[in-house]
């Protein structure tokens, strides 16, 4: 019987390891975040075309870049859930879906705030990246919705794992087809976000720091929620009881 638990990609191991790593990760995150934000807000020189709105792009690009990681992550976790029936993978995937929806939403929000300056409109269908991000947002929400609709944890895990794999393939196809659609509809906007490369090296260095900060934030947040999930699902086990008693 203990073999059965040991086979499940031991949540206890993850809990212990994350316990040791969490302070370091959180510290690094705070450091990069503060450096990145101060650099972006105070030191970044104005762009010749976009003025000080590059300060928006630093955040937007960092969040958008990270939000592309979610479906691949969930697809890998889903494959592990379906093939090796590892419970830990599903605990990560469950929280990744909700966090991914947050990331997509913030990407859309910051993108449209930036657009309100550069395009003079809050929403622009001719920007392929925003449109495919919108559909990624919908698909992530559908994974969250499916999870909450199925009561049985095991069944929900498998169903969401499959949907994540299908969704991941779909997001890629949607991305390419939206770009294709976009090219043929002749973008009217003078400035798409793909002209980012017009930005100078300072911009990319500040953005690089911010991307690392946001990735660290993503990892820390995911670890925190996964640890909660572990506590809840393993509450009968002795080691969780010990933690509870010590707390």
């Amino acid at each position, binding site marked *: 019987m203990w073999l059965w638990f040991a086979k499940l990609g031991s949540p206890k191991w993850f809990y212990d390891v994350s316990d040791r790593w969490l302070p370091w990760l959180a510290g690094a995150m705070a450091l990069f975040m503060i450096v990145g934000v101060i650099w972006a807000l105070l030191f970044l020189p*104005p762009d010749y075309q976009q003025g000080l709105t590059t300060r*928006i792009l630093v*955040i937007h690009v960092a969040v958008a870049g990270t939000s592309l990681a979610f479906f691949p992550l969930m697809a890998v976790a889903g494959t592990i859930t379906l093939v090796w029936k590892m419970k830990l993978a599903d605990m990560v995937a469950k929280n990744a879906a909700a966090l991914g929806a947050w990331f997509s939403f913030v990407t859309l*929000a910051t993108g449209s705030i930036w657009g309100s300056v550069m395009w003079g409109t809050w929403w622009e269908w001719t920007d392929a990246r925003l449109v495919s991000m919108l559909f990624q947002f919908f698909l992530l929400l559908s994974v969250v919705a499916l999870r909450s609709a199925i009561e049985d944890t095991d069944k929900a895990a498998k169903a969401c794992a499959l949907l994540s794999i299908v969704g991941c393939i779909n997001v890629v196809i949607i991305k390419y087809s939206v770009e294709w659609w976009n090219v043929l509809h002749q973008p009217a906007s003078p400035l798409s976000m793909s002209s980012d490369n017009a930005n100078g090296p300072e911009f990319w260095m500040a953005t690089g720091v911010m991307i690392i900060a946001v990735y660290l*934030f993503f990892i820390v947040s995911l670890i925190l929620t996964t640890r909660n999930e572990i506590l809840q699902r393993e*509450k009968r086990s002795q080691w969780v009881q010990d933690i509870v008693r010590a707390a």
Partner: protein
Amino acid sequence: MTQSIQFSSISEFLDMGGYAFNVWAVYAVFLVFIFVNLVFPIVRRKKILREIKKQSVFEHTDTDSTD
């Protein structure tokens, strides 16, 4: 490459070259986003620990009474 503060006064900094609303809105959204996704899990953890504690106390009193 020289790095220097791009603003000479606080009010200029707050104004963000005329894009005050947009720039500060993005940073506000970002801040809320980070805050929610870090603080909520920590608060939830406390709640979960409390709940598990309550449950296990119940179970222990159960077994005590049957002993």
